[in-house]
């Protein structure tokens, strides 16, 4: 009798799963990421695998990181030996989601789109479908929803969104695969965390829906932020100073970054409610029974939308409609998915300072460059906003040529001025060289004020030769 029940249960489980798995797609990608230190070049072609699934509108959803820098994307359906060529229709680097399209009509034959469900309850069971490493066929892993929290999304590296932790194994190749509960997609498997065992993370339905709504105008914007830092309000003296009644509500605004938020909020305002969510004194809200950071509430809105806030200011409640936007001024501190900008002149390779550039210097990149460069990238915005450059420019390399052979600098330095012009962004480099009428160009570097001279006429003459010598098709990408 016992054996029979097990069999029936198994049958009951497998039957609907068979419908789901037909819509789960195996993805093979041949990709070629750029070289950030040699910005006109690309790395060797790499191959990796991921998973996707069909959704409404004849689109295949997967992770952004599955299709980053793809040169070719091949899809395979369950039981169909043919590979189908796909292309990226939309990509959201911050939420690590992408939508693919296939031109070949045969791809869609017999496939039913999967429906997006709701955020699964903690302790409930979910099943991850995918094509992980370790075999060729579709694989299922069952797990429990462990917790729901704001987590860093590693594809971009500098943004956190809601994520669900599960103890179902999520391995390389699972990325982009659906997490299923009651035949509906309740998540997209996307990342693990080194050091954590039996823990995988998936992207919850609210993030998936935000992405799908965002692209309704055929353009992806991203997840907006209020750009505030806040503190808890545990300390009785602090609450007294803020004239804040009770002891369990409100998070104090400690700093505000974007001007658009400064117009509506000020430091020492206390957030009582963000959207529909009351804010606790530790800066959390309760989202469908889960305690999460209040920042999550803002990410429910679209770029440019207004978030209704209730704040406590000067001893009374005030209602504020805060417009929120996708913040971009810290883009260089996260992974970027547009080709690196650069300019080559006289053998000098100029490219914007970014985290992507620094990691090319090796694992101990923090020791490979001056502390000033790290401060410029990560801290200047907060510490000395008036001194921050829009786009700090690095001299990444000096391509050897008689015109520059006497240079003491060999690269890895931040450019301060060229011909007396302060370099705030890459375009300034071009302007500074092109507008100079002196016999020499002078290039000054930060922070030590090192200077190099370059004969202008010789450099102008040498430039085409250097580009040819080093196989650089264009002297710039802007």
């Amino acid at each position, binding site marked *: 009798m016992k054996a029979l029940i097990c069999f029936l249960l198994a049958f009951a489980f497998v039957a609907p799963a068979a419908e789901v798995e037909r819509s789960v797609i195996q993805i093979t990608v041949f990709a070629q990421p750029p070289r950030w230190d040699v910005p006109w070049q690309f790395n060797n072609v790499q191959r990796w695998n991921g998973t996707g699934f069909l959704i409404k509108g004849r689109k295949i959803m997967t992770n952004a990181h599955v299709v980053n820098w793809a040169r070719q994307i091949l899809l395979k359906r369950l039981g169909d030996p043919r590979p189908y060529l796909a292309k990226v229709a939309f990509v959201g680097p911050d939420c690590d989601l992408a939508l693919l399209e296939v031109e070949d009509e045969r791809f869609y034959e017999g496939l039913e789109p999967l429906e997006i469900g709701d955020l699964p309850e903690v302790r409930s069971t979910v099943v991850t479908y995918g094509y992980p490493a370790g075999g060729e066929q579709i694989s299922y892993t069952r797990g429990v929803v462990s917790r729901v929290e704001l987590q860093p999304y590693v594809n971009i590296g500098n943004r956190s969104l809601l994520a669900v932790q599960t103890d179902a194994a999520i391995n390389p190749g699972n990325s982009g695969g659906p997490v299923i509960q009651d035949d509906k997609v309740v998540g997209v498997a996307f990342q693990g965390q080194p050091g954590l065992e039996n823990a995988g993370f998936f992207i919850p339905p609210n993030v998936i829906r935000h992405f799908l709504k965002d692209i309704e105008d055929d353009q992806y914007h991203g997840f907006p932020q209020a750009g505030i*830092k806040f*503190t*808890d*309000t*545990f*300390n*009785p*003296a*602090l609450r*007294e*100073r*803020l004239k804040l009644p009770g002891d369990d509500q409100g998070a104090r605004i*400690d*700093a505000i970054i974007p001007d658009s938020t400064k117009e509506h909020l000020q*430091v*020492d305002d206390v957030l009582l409610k963000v959207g529909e969510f009351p804010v606790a004194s530790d800066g959390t809200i309760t989202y469908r029974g889960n305690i999460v950071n209040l920042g999550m509430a803002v990410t429910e809105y679209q770029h440019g939308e207004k978030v209704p806030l209730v704040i406590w200011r000067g001893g009374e409640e005030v209602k504020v409609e805060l417009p929120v936007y996708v913040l971009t001024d810290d883009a260089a501190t996260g992974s970027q998915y547009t080709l690196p900008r650069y300019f080559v002149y006289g053998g000098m390779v100029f490219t914007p300072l970014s985290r992507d550039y620094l990691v090319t210097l090796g694992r101990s990149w*923090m*020791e490979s460059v001056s*502390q*000033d460069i*790290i*401060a410029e990238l*990560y*801290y200047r*915005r*907060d*510490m*000395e*906003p008036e001194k921050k450059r829009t786009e700090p420019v690095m001299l990444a390399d000096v391509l050897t040529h008689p015109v520059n052979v*006497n*240079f*003491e600098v060999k690269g890895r330095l931040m450019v301060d001025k060229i011909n007396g012009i302060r370099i705030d962004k890459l375009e300034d480099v071009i302007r500074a060289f092109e507008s100079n009428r*002196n*016999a*020499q*160009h*002078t290039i000054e570097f930060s*922070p*030590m*004020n*090192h*200077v*190099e*001279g*370059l*004969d202008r006429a010789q450099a102008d003459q040498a430039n085409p030769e250097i580009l040819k010598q080093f196989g650089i098709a264009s002297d710039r990408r802007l």
Partner: protein
Amino acid sequence: MKPLNLMLCALLLAPVTLLPAASGDLARWERSLVTLEVNSQGYNYIQPWTRRSQSTQKSGVVIGPRSILTTAEQLNDLLLARVQKGGRGRWYPAQLEWIDYHANLALLTSDDEEFWQGLRPASLMTKIPLSGDARVLRWREGKIEARKMEINRARIETGRQTFIDIMHLELNGEVPGVGFGEPVIDGSRIIGIMEAPAGSGGLAVPAPFIKSILDARTKGDYRGLGFFNFYWQRAENPETLKALKMEQTDHGVIVIQPLAKIGEESILKARDVILEIDGFEIGPEGDYQDPIYGRTMLEALATRGRWAGDGVPMTIWRDGRQMEIEYKLPKAEFTDEMIPDKVFDQPPEYLIAGGFVFQPLTVPYLESWGGDWQRRAPFRLAYLKQAIPTEKQEALVVLSVVLPDPYNLGYQSIRGLLVREINGRKIVRLPDIEAALKEPRDGFHIIEFARGDSPGKIVLDAGDLSAATARVLQRYGIDQDRLILGDSN
């Protein structure tokens, strides 16, 4: 069995070969070489109110009547020193007579007449060999141990106990545990004093450098070491020189960052080309031909018989013409730095209020994160090491840690934040905090941290502060709520 026995014999014989009979040329050193025992006070900058004592031994050498030379290292925060002659027997009391951390030199004496009986001063060489073999001496179990080391070169680099560049002698040779004031000798005279192990050898303070300082000291001319307070770059790129309106390309270096003490201005300007210093032509790589040390980096000219406050003649190129200037050597002083490299001969300063521990931001504090503090300490603090002090901000105070108490509920996790203002008063040193806490705002203390720190501000109840401080001191077993040594630090 046999090969093993032979090997044992070889090992036993080895020290003997290193020890020529003490009756030979080493015998005279028995009357000059001494052992020092140093007992000093140690501190824990995480809990600046705590103290410990530490003891170590090092070598010294008698170089004059009642005068023992050694390195300055380990002699800071000295509690008690003793000295032993002959490598064994009685320890005599010793007194620190003079110490110069920047030069890494110290002189000790003993007021016990008996100690000096039988001792004979050794002499310092005025010109030293820059290659060949030398011997390093120390007492070991009642015998002089003389280990051969090879002189590699003299080189300029940042001193062991200072931020300035000074002359060092580099020696090769595997001598374990060397680098604690042992004399390096060539027959009967001192070539240098060992100051540190380095790679498969060690570094010594060269004798001519020591002698020049001691001689100046005897004459009353020594005012401490000065240094060149500017950064320079090589002038090997002729196009850079052309841009500076200078055609001459065979010598000189380009000043890129002239610095000066607060309230002073450097005579040098950025983009000056230094052609000569003190009569020595400077090469495009920044070196000159030193009569003693050979090709040497120009920094050596700041300590080559010139002391703090002395003028050093320089020939420079500025705005298309050559000119003569006199560069006044600023004195090397830790207190001139915004984040002092060293804090010697004083306990760490601190102020505890309501469980909040405030301390001056110093390198010894940052070293609480370990030897590789530059990587491990909070970046925002470590990065400030290179900050240049200004009249408005000549020092910094950090809220180092919070000792948890109901008073500071919600703030217990705060670590390592730079204090910008308290109750609207700018904070530069600890006395500013004392003053600021006397002026609460509407019954509150408002502490604001440096821009970008998180949190940027905290609010405390001014009325409860004293009681909270008393409670924290009692609970954490701290005897004093503050140690503030005045404006000198």
